[in-house]
């Protein structure tokens, strides 16, 4: 197939064209185009989910009900979670996989290029179903992003739209994962053995297996919800002999591997950035691979730590508590290896490195609150409080999102052919870091003091901390507009990027010119 001439707003040369305008993007089978589509889609969903978050924080700025009705507030918390998890974080990492994996393993494209196109184009309809559910009678799903029965059985048609959206996004993820696994296993350049693959590729290989194992389980769970709602089955309906707790078991069998799906590719990105800016090879490569694999395997046996209060027998509580604590060991190995990579390295702190080091700092804090929550008696006290909200935003925002930002700054010169504005990038990092902590650090105190999550109103003793959190949230949200500006500015122009803008970066994509040509590695490179 002939390649494509650049779109107007993509001034860099794509080669020779056969289709212009919108049709280029709809029909594209090029991994770089599809990666770009994924990244823009996820950024739009990120803004949508962020707008919901800011509406939530505006309501919580003061005690009492000021801005939204409680019913609408519940819809906002639910959709904020769903949109950020399935619309923003996951597609963003798939976007990275599309752009980077073929270039990093020396392959010309993804294994199934047309299926790749389909995987992406399933997402916009699913996103529209989710966001459109606000407009139907009864509004969007309002039972929390975990869709717990029996609330999810009772809610209106918005819940059905959510279920369909999850089905579609699940199909998209599974196709994407099959593509990624096949590409990695079958299309590596000669000489690149599995244990020579860049860490980002390893992280995605493991993540893709997790996705194939658990996305179908979620699809099954929401299918059961659907039949309970409309076809007279009683999987979760207590009156008909079903069990609402059953839903929680199935959901979290998906849900816990899912949280590693959202962090492992982040680990991979950070493991590329830290060696590049420390000018040293990654410390303990093999142990990193084993650590990620053990995290992935352990993720299947810890699901019930999300449900310590459902009334499990003590043996179950103990098992899930110890299994959960076990995960701290491989995670600790990873953090140790990152620190050891930096040890006595010739470090410089460009924006990607700032985000990577910031990631280690705040992600580890989130990891420690995770350990605290793993302790059953403590968790029973803290279940469904703001402490939990603080914990998972430390690992999801400061973990996944910061690693995504770091990765974007790291590879933007390769993608666009221009250097981003380093000064603005660093300002973006510091604004994000400070406002992030302002928003979420105080939530630990709110949770310890007993403020429940998912409530639009609260007792007045929580007023000060909530006000601080809301100010932080607006600062954090607005800082991301600066990020949009930096990316757009970098796409439109700037200092010409050399093939290898980071002197410590040694993976295959840096042997290509910047911007990466539309078709790369048509003859595979040989890895020694």
């Amino acid at each position, binding site marked *: 197939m002939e390649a494509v001439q650049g779109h107007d707003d993509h001034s860099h040369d794509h080669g020779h064209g056969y289709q212009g305008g919108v049709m280029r993007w709809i029909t594209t089978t090029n991994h770089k185009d599809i990666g770009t589509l994924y990244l823009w889609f996820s950024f739009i969903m990120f803004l949508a989910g962020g707008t919901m978050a800011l509406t939530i924080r505006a309501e919580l700025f003061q005690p009492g009900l000021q801005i939204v009705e409680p019913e609408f507030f519940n819809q906002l918390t639910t959709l904020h979670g769903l949109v950020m998890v399935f619309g923003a974080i996951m597609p963003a990492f798939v976007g990275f996989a599309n752009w980077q994996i073929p270039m990093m393993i020396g392959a010309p494209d993804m294994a199934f290029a047309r299926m790749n196109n389909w995987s992406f184009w399933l997402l916009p309809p699913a996103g529209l179903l989710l966001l459109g559910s606000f407009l139907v009678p009864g509004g969007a799903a309002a039972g929390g992003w975990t869709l717990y029965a029996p609330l999810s059985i009772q809610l209106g048609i918005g819940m059905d739209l959510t279920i369909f959206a999850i089905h579609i996004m699940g199909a998209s993820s599974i196709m994407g994962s099959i593509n990624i696994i096949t590409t990695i296993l*079958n299309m590596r350049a000669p000489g690149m053995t599995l244990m020579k693959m860049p860490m980002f590729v390893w992280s995605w290989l493991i993540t893709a297996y997790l996705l194939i194992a658990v996305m*179908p389980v979620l699809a099954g769970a929401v299918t059961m919800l659907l039949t309970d709602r409309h076809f007279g089955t009683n999987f979760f309906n207590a009156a008909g002999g079903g069990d609402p707790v059953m839903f929680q078991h199935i959901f979290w069998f998906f849900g816990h591997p899912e949280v590693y799906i959202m962090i492992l590719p982040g680990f991979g990105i950070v493991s590329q950035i830290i060696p590049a800016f420390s000018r040293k090879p990654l410390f303990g490569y093999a142990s990193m691979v084993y650590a990620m694999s053990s995290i992935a395997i352990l993720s299947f046996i810890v699901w019930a730590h999300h449900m310590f209060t459902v009334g499990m027998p003590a043996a179950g509580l103990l098992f899930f508590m110890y299994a959960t604590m076990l995960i701290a060991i491989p995670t600790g190995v990873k953090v140790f290896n990152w620190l050891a990579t930096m040890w006595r390295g010739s470090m410089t702190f460009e924006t990607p490195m700032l985000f990577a080091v910031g990631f280690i700092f705040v992600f580890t804090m989130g990891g420690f609150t995770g350990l605290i929550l793993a302790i059953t008696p403590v968790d029973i006290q803290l279940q469904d409080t703001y402490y939990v909200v603080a914990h998972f935003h430390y690992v999801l925002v400061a973990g996944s999102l910061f690693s995504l930002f770091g990765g974007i700054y790291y590879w933007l010169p390769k993608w666009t052919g221009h250097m981003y504005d380093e000064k603005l990038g660093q300002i973006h990092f510091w604004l994000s870091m400070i406002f992030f902590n302002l928003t979420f650090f105080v939530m630990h105190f709110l949770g310890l003091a007993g403020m429940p999550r998912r409530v639009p109103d609260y007792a007045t003793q929580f007023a000060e901390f909530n006000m601080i959190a809301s100010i932080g949230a607006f600062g954090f949200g607005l800082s991301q507009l600066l990020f949009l500006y930096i990316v757009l500015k970098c796409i439109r122009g700037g200092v010409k990027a050399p093939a290898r803008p980071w002197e410590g970066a040694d993976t295959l994509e840096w042997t290509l010119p910047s911007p990466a040509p539309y078709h790369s590695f048509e003859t595979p490179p040989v890895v020694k």
Partner: protein
Amino acid sequence: MSALGSNRFLLRKLLVVAAVMFGFGFALVPLYKKICEVTGINNIARADTVENRQIDTSRWLTIELDANTRDQLPWTFSPLQKTIRVHPGELVHVEYEISNPSGSAVTGQAVPSYGPQLAGLYFRKLECFCFTQQQLAAGETRRMPVVFVIEPSLPDDVNTITLSYTFFPIEGRG
């Protein structure tokens, strides 16, 4: 095998894994049922057994009986006595009456709950209409028993226990 062929082969294998995991989600339901049955967890819809039949006559408990219906179930449902006084360890027999004044047969399932919740652990039901679904023909009235024992080990600060039943309609079964 050609490159394309081996890609397709891997694609098929991974699709099978995905399909199996979809089935596994459903298989969890009977799997959990079996595990709960074998280990005796979650046995609210099964008759309990009572070993210690020592009646503690020094202690009186008030049992309040409560009855509700849910989701437009067209039944009237009430206990014959609203409150009874019993001793811990005593075998107690109470009756409820349901009638179906509607023009068609309806199936329902009663779900018990206890106040205080903790008392549920000491409430041993030997027989209960909540163990099975109840089908009432049009216009039928039925008296149904509950036979229970309150364990004498019930904490001293519990003097009143509310046993509340809610009948839910079972859809799709006349």
